[in-house]
């Protein structure tokens, strides 16, 4: 049955993250905040980030609704960027968005993404790519202090 193929998308680790998302809470003292929406499905993410004096991510949290992919992607993203510098985090966001568009990246960059690297196979589910990237776009826009918005108003690179 076709459901076995679902395993290639909904890997154990993805389902774990969506069942028990990490850092799913608001940060009252966030230095950077953003709300992004995906008009295609109505999903919303609120992302809160605390940058310390050296521009390192000292804390990060998200709230909102979404599908399995968007929720677990947000969870894996928060794990991956925690403690990273702003520039490192932005570089990771770029790596992630390239990865899901099928562009090649050095293994080192992919390793940086930790669990999130597992979403590389979202590529074969084009309709779900936006679900996976929502959290990373939110990260990027929050760090670049862009206004809230919806994902469609982002230009794809």
């Amino acid at each position: 049955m076709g459901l076995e193929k679902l395993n290639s998308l909904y890997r154990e680790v993805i389902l774990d993250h969506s069942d028990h998302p990490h850092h799913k809470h608001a940060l009252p003292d966030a230095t950077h905040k953003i709300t992004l929406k995906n008009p295609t499905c109505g999903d919303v993410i609120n992302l809160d980030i605390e940058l310390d004096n050296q521009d390192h991510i000292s804390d990060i949290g998200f709230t909102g609704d979404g599908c399995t992919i968007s929720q677990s992607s947000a969870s894996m993203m928060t794990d991956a960027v925690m403690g990273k510098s702003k520039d490192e985090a932005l570089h990771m966001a770029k790596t992630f968005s390239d990865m899901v568009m099928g562009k090649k990246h050095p293994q080192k960059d992919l390793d940086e993404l930790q669990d999130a690297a597992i979403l590389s196979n979202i590529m074969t589910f084009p309709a779900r790519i936006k679900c996976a990237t929502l959290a990373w776009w939110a990260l990027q826009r929050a760090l670049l202090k862009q206004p809230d918005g919806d994902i469609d108003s982002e230009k794809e690179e």
Partner: protein
Amino acid sequence: MDSTLTKLMRDFPILDQKVNDEHLVYLDNAATAQRPNQVIEALTHFYQTDNANVHRGVHTLAERATADYEAARRKMQKFINAAEPEEVIFTKGCTDGLNLVASTYGEANVSAGDEIVISIMEHHSNLIPWQQLAIRKGATLKYIHLTDDGELDLDEATQLITDKTKIVAVAHASNVMGTVNPIKQLAKLAHQHGAIFVGDGAQAVPHMPVDVQDLDVDFYAFSGHKMMGPTGIGILYGKRELLEAMPPYQFGGEMIGFVHQQESTWAELPYKFEAGTQNIAGAVGLGAAADYLTQIGMTAVQAHEQAIVNYLLPKLEAMDGLTVYGPQDPAKHTGVIAFNLEELHPHDVATALDMEGVAVRAGHHCAQPLMEYLGLTATARASFYLYNTQADADRLLTALQETKEFFNHGSREAK
């Protein structure tokens, strides 16, 4: 019907394919239908024998193309029982037709303080044109809401439609909940208050007999691609006296009488509203689709879909953790069924069903105000057509069951 159906399946080679190693079950007909070979052949034949630009051409191909195009118009006239071919305007699709009415009739007849009444279940295409018209004019846009069973609240309609109302615009059938709306009654209500009634027939014309004269609607728009016709073609029906009083929508070739440097006059109906080269082959293909459906009979089409809904809907409603939105009574339902699985996002459900070869849609179905009203962000939606069978309904039921099990960790160990 069933041996007819087997024969009919041969007309749709696209349905005879595997998707993710499973035989395709196409249940996204509310988004777009599939086209039978007869329609594709009509396009091919037109392009390979008669293709030319229509009207004003003196040569033989132009004469043939014009005859083909006008024959298609007469087929569509008969299909919805319009009084005259001049009342049948070719458009790009339903959205184009509804925008045409809002931008011409609406622009000319709605002023500050006037009211426009629509329903909360409208598709964005029958909602935003009126919303933006109201904003431009300082008019008020009012919404008819739903009864508990997902039907239009006629009592509320009776209160909302008053002498202030200039336009009432409601879908003949909902593209989310499958509700069929009493638009004949709504048109009558509108007329009692001197308003006009605009019907959105996108989800009705493909699936049931429609008689615009009997409904007494003033305008009625629908798309070809949802009734087995080509993409890029649709129909706007309008009553002659209204169409004649309206200014043109677009300006250009074919819609003119005389053009001078600083002023122009317009062509007669229906050409006044058909600026530029139309989708001629599309019109011919749509005519072929109407022929195809007419041969089967719209009553038979409706009965076939009704039989599937009668079979499927109670089974869906009985499924643990599954919620169906819209009327629970199969008799009040078209072949469009929106639902959600508990704790599962409809996008995940649609992906899972796709892995089983079952194509459904997930999202807000271009009806965000309805979603908000129902307290949802999205739903899954299965929508049936003539070529779908009870076996397809069974495939959907099985796939849903397996989806539930998969996400309930039943098959996770496989990894």
